[in-house]
């Protein structure tokens, strides 16, 4: 058995609309490796998501990332159990 090393952070990731359909679940738990600085950023998460779900790039769907319900830029450092949400372009009204 491979042990779960502490170099990963664990995130709850929600997704919506077309991203939810591509991912196949409204919420998932994702383990993200820490980068060279020992942290993980929104950019690292974005890379991981696009790697896991190539259909998102294939359909050219822009992803907005919210961390704890606030829109986040790629440099933001994310921590264990932050609530992450993957948001496609919005269309309410």
């Amino acid at each position, binding site marked *: 058995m491979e042990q779960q090393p502490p170099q990963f952070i664990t995130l709850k990731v929600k997704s919506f609309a077309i991203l939810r359909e591509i991912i196949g679940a409204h919420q998932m738990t994702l383990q993200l490796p820490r980068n060279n600085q020992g942290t993980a950023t929104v950019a690292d998460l974005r890379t991981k998501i696009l790697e896991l779900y190539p259909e998102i790039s294939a359909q050219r769907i822009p992803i907005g990332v919210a961390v704890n319900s606030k829109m986040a830029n790629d440099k933001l450092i994310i921590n264990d159990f932050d609530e992450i949400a993957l948001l496609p372009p919005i269309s*309410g*009204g």
Partner: protein
Amino acid sequence: MFSIISEHPIDIEMLLANVKDDSAGATVLFLGTVRNHNDDDAVSAIYYEAYIRMAEEAMAKIEAEVVERWNLKKFAAVHRIGNLKVGEVSVAIAASSEHRAEAFEAGRYAIDRIKTEVPIWKKEIITGHIGGVWAEGKPLAGGD
């Protein structure tokens, strides 16, 4: 705060009751409804989905801003989610103010803000398209 997301049909009377104020001389009500077409496509229903936590936070922010900017007596808004048929109300906004200009302007501004800042998505159920079509949207700003 009177701005919420709801999975139930919007109760217009209750919305109006929420903005009732004896010092108001004007109340404006806006209703967004499900249209039976989009360009050349025949639409039979729309499915709405929201990131409820963030959507209600965004709506509360809009409510606070319009009340302050137009000196409203009261403001209330409801956006519905789930499956809606043609003609059903998807979004309702009510604003009350001393005179009519403020309530009209605030209502117009609020619906524009809701459409660009509140994380809600719609999938149109269109004749001839199995499974429906997600509406093309606008990326949410912020975070930079």
